[in-house]
């Protein structure tokens, strides 16, 4: 039986208060980091733990930190990406609402490692309760000397500011987030330069997801070997899985990285509603290509899902049962991407507009011969031709739906109606 680490306090009454967090050993990781490790040793420890970014891309966290130039006196920033907008994802919200101190502790250790004295938490504006809880926790931590100047008697100074987003999915893309933080319309930047070299206000900046940062105090307290020992060695650690859709027990589950998707959906989340069968599962938010039911034995980790042609993404697991029309699901997903396209790149802005029109007419029973080929052509035209991953995610997801459920699309066109209505 797996014992939760990251969600330990989440279901405890008053889990969001400093007193609860301290009683469970909270801030001991920070004390240990400041007392027993140099910043470089923390970077090295996190490298050895094989922690990979939980925001979606799975980039090795320690390596990302090591790209920050070691220039004394130069301002560096830490940004926490809490703009959780990937449909099907709600893990960071629950962590911040119910146990915000572990995020503050994670940020403090991470900032110490990279030499930053200021952090911004970019949190989506809809998350009003999480924003309040985090602000309250920052005030508590400041009063207790976990934030501020000369933290716990060390030379380390660190402050955390909350910056509220205002409803734009694209802000989850790290360079668009930086533009948004600078007070601009959120549009992705061309890389290089990478944020570690020239990020916020052109200063070296590390951007990490909430869940990535909350793993850090655990790694410091329990060691890199402990972390690497949970799940696959190259993609290890405790993992938060968000399960939603047509399943009996939707919710947030903490389990080892790499558990089979089938076990997560059927055992932990209770399987599909009575009398229905699972048709497909989207494993990592709507940017992740869909997996048809026979493929559910895949392990939920970065490498296994990549090998299966999809991705772990944000671990937003969306379950679709056999009463649901896949054309309708695909249409809704592309409508989302079309709405959230920032408009910078033509293939994404115009291509998705075109895809939405074709999908809507197929779903309405007004599809025409040649529509399938047009969709294939549009996926090809968008993929790889945009600044950021938004267009890629849309095209990859649609390509998978077209490949795995082609007969459903064709049936809509041939029967001139939706077979599910």
């Amino acid at each position, binding site marked *: 039986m797996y014992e939760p680490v990251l969600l330990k306090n989440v279901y405890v009454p008053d889990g969001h208060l400093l007193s609860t967090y301290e009683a469970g050993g909270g801030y001991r990781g920070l004390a240990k980091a400041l007392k027993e490790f140099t910043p470089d040793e923390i970077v090295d420890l996190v490298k050895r733990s094989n922690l990979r970014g939980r925001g979606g891309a799975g980039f090795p966290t320690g390596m990302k930190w090591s790209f920050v130039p070691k220039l004394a006196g130069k301002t560096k920033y830490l940004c926490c990406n809490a703009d*959780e*907008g*990937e*449909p*099907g*994802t*709600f893990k*960071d*919200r*629950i962590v911040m609402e119910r146990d915000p101190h572990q995020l503050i502790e994670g940020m403090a250790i991470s900032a110490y490692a990279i030499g930053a004295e200021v952090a911004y938490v970019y949190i*989506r*504006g*809809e*998350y*009003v*309760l999480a924003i309040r809880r985090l602000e309250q926790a920052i005030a508590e931590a400041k009063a207790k000397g976990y934030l501020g100047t000369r933290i716990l008697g060390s030379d380390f100074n660190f402050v955390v*500011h909350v*910056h*509220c*987003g*205002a*409803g*734009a*999915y694209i802000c989850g893309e790290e360079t668009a987030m930086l533009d*948004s*933080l*600078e*007070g*601009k*319309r*959120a549009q992705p930047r061309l890389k290089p330069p990478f944020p570690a070299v020239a990020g916020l*206000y052109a200063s070296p900046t590390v951007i990490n997801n909430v869940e990535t940062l909350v793993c850090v105090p655990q790694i410091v307290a329990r060691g890199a070997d402990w972390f690497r020992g949970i799940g696959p060695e190259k993609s290890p650690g405790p993992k938060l899985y*968000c*399960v*939603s*859709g*047509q399943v009996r027990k*939707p*919710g*947030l589950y903490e389990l080892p990285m790499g558990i089979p998707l089938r076990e997560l959906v059927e055992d932990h989340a209770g399987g599909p509603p009575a009398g229905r069968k699972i048709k497909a599962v*989207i494993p990592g938010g*709507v940017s992740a290509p869909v997996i048809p039911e026979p493929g559910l034995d895949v392990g939920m980790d970065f490498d296994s899902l990549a090998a299966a042609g999809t991705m772990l993404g944000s671990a*937003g697991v*969306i*379950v*679709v049962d056999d009463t*649901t029309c896949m054309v*309708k*699901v695909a249409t*809704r*997903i592309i409508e*989302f991407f079309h*709405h*959230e396209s920032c408009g910078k790149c033509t293939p994404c802005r115009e291509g998705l507009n075109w895809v939405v029109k074709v999908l809507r007419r197929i779903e309405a029973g007004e599809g025409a011969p040649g529509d399938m080929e047009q969709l294939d052509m549009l996926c090809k035209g968008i993929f790889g031709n945009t600044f950021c991953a938004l267009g890629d995610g849309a095209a990859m997801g649609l390509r998978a739906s077209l490949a795995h459920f082609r007969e459903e699309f064709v049936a809509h066109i041939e029967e001139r109606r939706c077979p599910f209505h």
Partner: protein
Amino acid sequence: MTMREKIEQAAARYPDQRSAIMPALLIAQREHGHLPGPVLEEVAEILGVERIWVYELATFYTLFHTEPVGKFHLQLCDNVSCMLRRSEDLLTHLEKALRIKKGGTTPDGLFTLSTVECLGACEMAPVMQVGDDYHGNLDIERIDALLGRLRATVPETTGADLAAAEPPGE
């Protein structure tokens, strides 16, 4: 604290005043309900930034409203996880109960009905945000109870107001 003081306090968190435009707009919208031109100009003046910078943010981000919205802004999620748990039925019901279409505001200015992209609360789908609060695991009974509670928080209107709120021909 006045709006100006709140904005100046928020601006102190950044080395560049331009970064404070977003927090300032959120503060101003809380104060005024929405963000008409004169409010945007005031924000620009308080921060000492270009007016165009303020306008371009107010029109880019979906949480900013340059037009008035109802006292209660019902924001129903209809993204995939909510759609799979029948948010469409709730939209139809809300449109009927409020006698407005998606995007509309009731004539008494009480309710605006919108659909929104994923609210990040799929574990309690279907979900709707009203003001600062999330309401989850919704069905028609819960929607009706919620509408009743929201209506009960506003003072009784006069008969004349109610008659005026009825759309003609119904």
